[in-house]
């Protein structure tokens, strides 16, 4: 069937803020879908509350709503837009849930609107446990046997039927607490008992245990003509039991015979047919390692993280095709974007091996529970492509941009056995120590094939290391014999240098005489069978290089930002994408290097040439050398390094050190801004105030410095990202408690001790063209200094700053920008105290706030920056120097956290960034924008209820007015003894709750759990010892979904927005274009 002509307008639902389990892959999917629909002449309306996305850019969809993602908001949008269809399957679980609600509540019917892609009934069948079970039984697809039990007798039924082992999962407990795997009768009775106890509804799920089996995934597509194809198979390195998002994943499957492969391929098609999905679907299987027995473990009737991975792994753009299918097109009517000659109705054949490794947030949460299971914990991932599995492993590990410290882990017995974020590295470590693959296989059930491949890497290491002791000539000779294989196994030059003790120059010489150089191969969906036109490349060490330069003389290499992690999120991908698009617009060939499969930047449509590579110096230089071939004398590809976050700045410094790019200019600016001594000198010379501070080399010295400066002080290790291990220290005792830990974070690096200024924070992103400075906007933080800017709420334009403060910031920014001399984007952070304005840091690169500011000011900041890098002048581009006039809207950025996904992590906000995503609330007034931001970030407070308050002693005075405000709005106040006492002294009535240990039966935890509390305001004591119940209370709030604010500033802002709500105005939605027009 061709395109359904009656569908003229479609609402695409995005996935909202980035949280663990729902990240940039949906920006990629959504952006592709919007473009794909527009290509078919369908007017596209989009809703997404996340401003840091490409999909919310004006050139992606026709009408863009950055509004809270609630049923009420979508109802309004449907009323305004009257689309014929709603497409919910590209917005992750958020989109799917919203689609379900819209259908269930009759809102779609009310607007005469159809759910596209996947029928309501299908979503229900895939999402509802029992309905899914029934369907699978109907079509003869096996699922693990299970029974829901409320007592031991009921649980025994399954045990009698299928025997042990069985897995017991208590209902409604976070992270499956209280459950377990029973292998003996006694164990079974014990775990059933424990599980029932820990479940709040005294219910458990008893299920056949399939842990340890192979975990296999298929990405399937189906169109309205019932044509079905599978795009990619994937095999999890980690056996069943670990969330696929947390597993190391390989594509295509490596250890399956064709019979096994086809058995599951046929099953996936059987399932997508039975479900009636029109679009993409992900099916996950468990496969026994000793028979053909398989089980269906999960079906996602939508585009998913795995489909983003499959798209990047094969070159087949799943979301793009799924969107076309949703409006009625069939696979054979859609052209294949890679070959342009064939159609989308085919199955990609790949001739390389793809590996994905997840990236975890435990550098931010060292205290967190690092064991892996069914709850996903990773924030991002890297992907590598190579012609050997070994090479893919090495490249992926080198792409991680972090090296885990294994020392503590290695002290444990069988350290390789437990599934944690560092298991892959621990297994390699175990192999190095001679632990056999058989032992590791027995302890982990990881397939021997994978383990042997890892052993190959260790063997190569050993062979290389043996050369270290040899004399030069002999060493060269033996190295020559090993070198090509080592390079094929993904060993970087620096690794070979370290292992063999040759110099880098010697190694390069040897590679030269051997004519051993990297070649680049194309990702073409067809294993070379057809000529492909898509320049999407990966490196490997073979004979033929397919990445022949285009012949264009003007080209630029954009260094991407690598895996998504806390502190370096999707915002930087946004910047990289825009840099690439700007280059293309300027007629310069854009060349992207990145290794993140989730993002838009690694969509081959975004750049002229895409290299999927680690972002280490060697890999970047290899691309550079390849692209330099055929350029006129004196011409070289230009590096664009200011958009990929800290990752690209690091690459820039390395490139300068290696002499590839000059040290002057950009690289010097980077150094100037990050070298504390130089930067302070500069500020002093410019007469710009900054907080006093020193670098201390030892703990003793740090204590002296702190006393000298005077408490409170801000303490942090040098050379870290995103405020890692940064703390505000209020006293000498507190300092003593902490200082050793801070020193341990980066061994042998000094610790910085700065005066902590208790004031407001604000930040500026500016553009500098060599002579003039443009400041698109200033963002005022809602929380005071001390909370990382990424975790603060912030508002544009400033609401509570004086003209004097603004003038000072503008003045300092302009002078500092000129002095630092960085062409393009620079971010400067300020702290304001009274009339004083202090500069706390300057970053000569695109920052986290660039997408937000670009959207609310209407200034295409990255595009301008890119033009400036090529010598354009702001004045010629139509921009006057100085602070750009405010656009007339008010926009509030609110952070979003993923605490509910992580256990045992400290949730109180501080100088270290903890949020994973952000939302924007935009409106014409501040209170409304604030309200929208709160709603969008999930903080929705009912009109009445109880507010639980427990604040640190130093905050009590300040808390009074806020608590009084909540009381005046009619909320009942509940408080801990100390706080309640203080409140009653000031005539605020508060019900008292005791310490948790005093009254476990009716403790505050129970009240939170039973939803008797609607809001928790808890400001923690500074020192850990002084905090007794705080952590438990915050954990309970997160577990049961009760908003928990740990800063009085946030509470004050919330109060402000609630007061505005009382005045009874409904929130109105508008498109971004409408806001900016006004």
């Amino acid at each position: 069937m061709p395109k359904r002509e009656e569908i003229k307008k479609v609402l695409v639902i995005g996935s909202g803020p980035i949280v663990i389990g729902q990240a940039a892959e949906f920006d990629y999917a959504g952006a592709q879908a919007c473009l794909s629909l527009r290509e078919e002449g369908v007017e596209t309306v989009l809703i997404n509350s996340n401003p840091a996305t490409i999909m919310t850019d004006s050139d992606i969809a026709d009408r863009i709503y950055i509004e809270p993602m609630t049923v009420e908001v979508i109802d309004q949008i449907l009323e305004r837009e009257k689309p014929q269809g709603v497409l919910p399957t590209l917005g992750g679980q958020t989109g799917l849930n919203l689609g379900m609600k819209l259908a269930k509540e009759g809102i779609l019917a009310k607007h005469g609107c159809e759910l596209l892609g996947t029928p309501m009934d299908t979503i229900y069948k895939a999402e509802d446990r029992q309905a899914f079970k029934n369907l699978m039984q109907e079509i003869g697809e096996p699922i693990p046997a299970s029974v829901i039990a409320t007592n031991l007798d009921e649980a025994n039924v399954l045990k009698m039927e299928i025997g042990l082992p069985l897995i017991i999962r208590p209902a409604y407990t976070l992270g499956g607490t209280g459950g377990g795997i029973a292998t003996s009768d006694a164990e079974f009775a014990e775990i059933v008992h424990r599980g029932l106890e820990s479940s709040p509804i005294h219910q458990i799920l008893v299920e056949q245990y399939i842990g340890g089996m192979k975990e296999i995934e298929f990405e399937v597509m189906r169109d309205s003509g019932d044509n079905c194809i599978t795009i990619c198979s994937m095999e999890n390195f980690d056996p069943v039991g670990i969330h696929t998002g947390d597993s190391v994943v390989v594509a295509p499957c490596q250890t399956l015979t064709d019979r096994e492969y086809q058995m599951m391929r046929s099953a996936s098609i059987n399932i997508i047919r039975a479900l009636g999905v029109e679009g993409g679907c992900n099916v996950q299987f468990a496969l026994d390692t000793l028979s053909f027995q398989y089980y269906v473990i999960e079906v996602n009737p939508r585009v998913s993280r795995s489909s983003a991975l499959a798209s990047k792994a094969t070159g087949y753009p799943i979301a793009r095709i799924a969107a076309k299918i949703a409006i009625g097109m069939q696979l054979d009517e859609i052209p294949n974007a890679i070959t342009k000659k064939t159609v989308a109705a085919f199955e990609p054949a790949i001739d390389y091996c793809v590996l994905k490794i997840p990236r975890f947030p435990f550098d931010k949460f060292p205290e967190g529970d690092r064991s892996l299971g069914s709850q996903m914990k990773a924030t991002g991932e890297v992907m590598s492509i190579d012609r050997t599995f070994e090479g893919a492993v090495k490249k992926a590990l080198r792409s991680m941009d972090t090296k885990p410290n294994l020392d503590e882990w290695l002290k444990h017995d069988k350290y390789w056995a437990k599934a944690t974020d560092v298991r892959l590295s621990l297994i390699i470590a175990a192999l190095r120590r001679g632990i056999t693959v058989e032992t590791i296989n027995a302890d982990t059930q990881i397939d021997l094939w994978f383990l042997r491949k890892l052993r190959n890497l260790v063997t190569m290491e050993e062979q290389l290391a043996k050369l270290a002791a040899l004399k030069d000539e002999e060493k060269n000779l033996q190295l020559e014999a090993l070198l090509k294989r080592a390079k094929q196994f993904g060993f970087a030059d620096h690794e070979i240098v370290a292992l063999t003790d040759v110099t880098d120059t010697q190694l390069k010489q040897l590679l030269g005489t051997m004519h051993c150089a990297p070649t680049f191969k194309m990702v073409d969906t067809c294993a070379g069978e057809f000529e492909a036109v898509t320049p999407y490349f990966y490196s490997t060490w073979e004979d033929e290089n397919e990445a022949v330069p285009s012949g264009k003389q003007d080209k630029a290499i954009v260094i991407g930002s690598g895996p998504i992690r806390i502190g370096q999120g999707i915002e930087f991908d946004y910047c990289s994408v825009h840099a690439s698009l700007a280059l293309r617009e300027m007629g310069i060939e854009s060349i992207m290097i990145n290794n993140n499969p989730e993002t838009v930047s690694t969509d081959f449509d975004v750049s002229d040439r895409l290299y999927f590579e680690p972002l280490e110096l060697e890999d970047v230089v290899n691309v550079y050398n390849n692209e330099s071939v055929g350029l006129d004398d004196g011409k070289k590809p230009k590096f664009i390094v200011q958009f990929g976050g800290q990752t690209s700045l690091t690459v820039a410094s390395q490139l300068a050190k290696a002499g590839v790019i000059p040290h002057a200019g950009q690289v010097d600016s980077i150094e100037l801004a990050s070298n504390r001594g130089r930067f302070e000198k500069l500020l002093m010379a410019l007469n710009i105030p900054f907080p006093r501070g020193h670098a201390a080399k030892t703990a003793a010295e740090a204590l002296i410095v702190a006393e000298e400066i005077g408490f409170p002080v801000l303490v942090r290790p040098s050379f870290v990202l995103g405020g890692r291990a940064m703390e505000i220290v209020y006293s000498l005792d507190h300092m003593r408690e902490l200082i050793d830990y801070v020193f341990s974070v980066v061994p042998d690096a000094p610790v910085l001790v700065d005066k902590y200024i208790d004031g407001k924070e604000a930040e500026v992103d500016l553009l500098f063209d060599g002579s003039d400075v443009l400041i698109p906007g200033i963002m005022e933080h809602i929380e005071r200094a001390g909370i990382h800017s990424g975790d603060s709420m912030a508002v544009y334009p400033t609401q509570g700053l004086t003209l004097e403060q603004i003038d000072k910031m503008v003045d300092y920014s302009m002078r500092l920008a000129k002095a630092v001399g960085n062409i393009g984007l620079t971010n400067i952070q300020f702290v304001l105290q009274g009339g004083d304005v202090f500069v706390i840091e300057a970053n000569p690169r695109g920052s986290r706030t660039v997408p937000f500011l670009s959207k609310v000011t209407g200034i295409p900041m990255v595009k301008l920056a890119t033009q400036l890098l090529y010598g354009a002048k702001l004045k010629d581009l139509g921009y006057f120097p100085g602070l750009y006039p405010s656009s007339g809207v008010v926009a509030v950025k609110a952070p979003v956290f993923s605490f509910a996904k992580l256990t045992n992590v400290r949730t109180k906000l501080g100088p270290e960034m903890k949020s994973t995503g952000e939302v924007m609330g935009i409106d014409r007034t501040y209170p409304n924008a604030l309200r929208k931001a709160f709603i969008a970030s999930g903080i929705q407070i009912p009109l009445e209820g109880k507010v639980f308050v427990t604040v640190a002693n130093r905050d009590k005075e300040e808390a009074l007015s806020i608590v009084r405000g909540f009381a005046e709005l009619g909320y009942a106040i509940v408080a801990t003894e100390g706080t309640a006492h203080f409140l009653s002294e000031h005539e605020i009535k508060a019900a008292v709750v005791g310490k948790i240990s005093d009254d476990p039966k009716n403790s505050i935890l129970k009240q939170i759990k039973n939803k008797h509390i609607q809001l928790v305001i808890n400001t923690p004591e500074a020192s850990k010892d002084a905090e007794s119940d705080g952590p438990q209370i915050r954990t309970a709030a997160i577990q049961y979904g009760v908003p928990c604010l740990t800063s009085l500033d946030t509470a004050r802002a919330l109060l402000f927005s609630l007061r505005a709500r009382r005045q009874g105005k409904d929130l109105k939605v508008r498109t971004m274009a409408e806001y900016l027009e006004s």
Partner: protein
Amino acid sequence: MKSEKAVLVLKDGTRFEGRAIGKRGISVGEVVFNTSMTGYQEILTDPSYAGQIITFTYPLIGNYDTNYEDLESRGVFCRGAIVKELEDEGNSWRGKHNLEDFLMRNNVIGIAGIDTRKLTRHIRNFGVLNGAIVSGQELTDIVVADVKARIDAFTDREMIREVSCKAVYHYDAPTEPWVTFEHWTRDKARRDAGGDGELKGFFMPKARGKGDDPAVIAKESATAASLQHEMRAERGSTIATSSHRNGIPCNDSVDKAQNHRKIFHLVAMDFGIKTNILRMLYNEGFDITVVPQDTSFETIVALQPDGIFLSNGPGDPKSIPDAIKVIGELIHYFPTMGICLGHQLLALATGGDTYKLKFGHRGGNHPVKDLKTGRVYITSQNHGYAVNQDSLVGTGLRVTLVNLNDQTVEGMDHENLPVFSVQYHPEASPGPQDNHYLFGKFRKLIEKPRMG
């Protein structure tokens, strides 16, 4: 890792230097590539590759070793194997010999460690071409001259005769004719001893879920055999058939040899038939007699078939004109189905023509569209020749299916006769199982009452 050198020499002089795998020596053939990502064992044992040197485009080959079940014929007929990375030590619960061992035992000369993507692109750009793998010896001038002469002299016209069975046999499913009890027990003894005895050729598939007791297996084989006899005796009447297949999971996940189905007698002309075709036909309720490619019309008629099956096979379909003549007669009397070479022969038998494709279709991902229903099927393919669509005018044959990649003819039926054919491999093995339905379609074609 063995590091003995091997060289692939192409007719146009291009050389690829790699590592010798399998048997050492010189092997000449047509160099082709297959893009399947699984199923190397089925591909290596597919008789349609006779005379060809197979390049596996997937770079990691041998990951799951080889077993005694995923065999598509009684031997290996290809002339060589080209892989990027040969896995020394695969892992699979059914694995018996690593691929190196398998190649050695089946006298396959191979080469590993070459840039197979470069080779594939070379073939794609210049078309399939003859070549030779030279391993275990230096490329002296004499060897080079010898290899060149042999490459120039190579032809694919003898291949069908080479792979076709030499005598008529009855397909006693599920015990393939070359698998004997003796083989099985030898293998069992070897496994029991834990040693690696000197064994050649293939062995009986291991019975799953029945224990490893030879007595049980023997008894079952006997039962199966007697059932077959009964079937033949009562052909035409409705009888109960055995649904067990020795516990071997057939590629068809649902056993279609259900009870109370009429058994039809099929004569399969063997041009290099794949075992899974026989299994699939058997499962559809066919009693199958397999005949050599040079069997006469009269001999086939004397077998009193209910239908004729034209198998897949290697090389140029025009190389067996006698068989083409026989087929031209058969289709007027019997419902006929053809697969791959059988499909090409059908076209030739009705007066149509075939031609050689530039680099053929070999893989498991080719989209084929049914012109009547508009449905698209993903197919397993392996052919170097194709039917010329224009040549079908006046033959009575109609194109029913086309390849979406290059619009070549993928299926035909006949205006008046109960005859149809497909260019691709509905039996898969390896490849997608989406087209198994075609065997059922053939059965229905035979069930349908016909005029005359």
